[in-house]
């Protein structure tokens, strides 16, 4: 993909190619099976029978190389922060990050005295969607994923960026 990215003038063909790529990427966002804390249990519950993430095409992958979406589910600590960053770097482009729960978003309940808690995962990686809640309900996570799909579909991967 790399060589073709943002190389074309906007026209009908490029726009529909963009749309096709957006469709493929948004329809099959394989997520990274990577749980940190409490939210991981809710993430598992979301992927399990009742809520079933596979409905929107999400399949868990345990290797970062094959995943498209990293759901940072839980508190990121100082000890873990650099590992999260490394995992993010190991993912192949295009990659997306969902910050699930208030701990990942801002430190959450550990904001004030958590000397060892990273106050928001966006300090180390780029976050696309924030899902609030402690922990977010499965419905909230699915809503976050749908928002991510919207975001992916709105992307124009081939079109040259206007400066």
């Amino acid at each position, binding site marked *: 993909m790399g060589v073709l990215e943002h190389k074309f003038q906007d026209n009908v063909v490029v726009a529909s190619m963009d749309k096709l790529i957006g469709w493929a990427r948004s329809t099959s966002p394989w997520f990274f099976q990577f749980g940190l804390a409490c939210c991981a249990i809710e993430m598992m519950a979301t992927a399990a029978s009742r809520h*079933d993430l*596979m409905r929107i095409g999400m399949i868990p992958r345990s290797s970062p190389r*094959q995943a498209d979406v990293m759901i940072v589910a839980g508190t990121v600590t100082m000890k873990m922060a650099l590992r999260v960053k490394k995992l993010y770097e190991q993912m192949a482009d295009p990659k997306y990050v969902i910050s699930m729960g208030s701990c990942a978003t801002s430190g959450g309940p550990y904001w004030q005295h958590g000397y060892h808690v990273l106050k928001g995962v966006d300090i180390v990686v780029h976050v696309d969607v924030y899902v609030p809640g402690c922990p977010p309900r499965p419905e909230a996570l699915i809503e976050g994923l749908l928002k991510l799909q919207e975001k992916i579909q709105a992307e124009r991967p081939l079109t040259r960026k206007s400066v």
Partner: protein
Amino acid sequence: MTVDTLMNWFAKLGDFPELAFILAVLICAVPVFLFIAVYALVAIYGELKISSFMQDKVGPMGQGVGLHAGKWGLLQPVADALKLILKEDIIPTSADKKLFILAPFIVFIGAFIAFAALPFNQNIIIADMNIGIFYILAVSSLGVIGLIMAGWSSNNKWSLYGAMRSAAQIVSYEIPAALSIIAVIMLTGTLSMQGIIQHQSGFVWGILPNWIIFQNPFTFLAFFIFFISGVAECNRTPFDIPEAESELVAGAFTEYSGMRYAFFFLSEYANMFIVSGIAVTAFLGGWQSPISGILNSPAWGLWWFMSKAMFLIFAMIWFRWTFPRLRVDQLMNVCWKGFTPIAMVNIFGVGIWHLMLG
């Protein structure tokens, strides 16, 4: 639509045998590739859906915002494939680049060229070799070289474990599989795939179709040995220790992303088809209809072959979502202390039964 037919046809146009051969092979290769691709999409969709129904889920439903994956998620595998192709292709800096790039293709080629000898019906077979079944067993082991290359070149410990495990496993399970096939060859007296199938027309004991699985109790056993060994060769649960998601992350494929990973995926499903194809040909009467003489036209032949093969693939999917995984030493025990001796004895059994009652 065999290579021979095409070459004969080219021969009428002029005298250029080498070129004719290459052309004929290429012309045959394209539909096979398309077939594998389409079949893999169907099988992946089937696997997602079947596993979901087994697990009280609904599986891909094409839900989501905007453009989605169609009704019942029918386009889900297409989107998956397209996405994988469009993904960044990562080659780790510490990896052995040449081998890393080559490995997925070798794995795929192993599965791909085995299709040449699969008889889909009376006419559709790329090359009806007189050593057909031997050829398939030989080339389908090529995949293991690719897996070892993938595991070694990734320079990742999980991959290395996966590669070593898969090498040991595939090489071991070749033996009971081949021994079971020998029993079949003893009965049919031919290595040609079409020959084996033609041998299975008619009835046995009046009612059952004259498929080799029903011909005597030892072949009945041989079928199961072959099929289970085949599942092991495909690295499917309960024998998926090379991939072993909960132990080895993704085994030999840990470092692969994007299209290269898609090729591994594709070859896994292609291998499943080959194992099922051999099992159908050698034990379940290939394209023969269950009631010999009825519904046996080439079109029905294709239907019978595909439906039998798909049933076996369904069985593999069923195993995968039911069983836990064996440990590596237990896996070897099953092979060397269980299947191999039984398969050996089986050969004698088949022979004696054939001599006495055949």
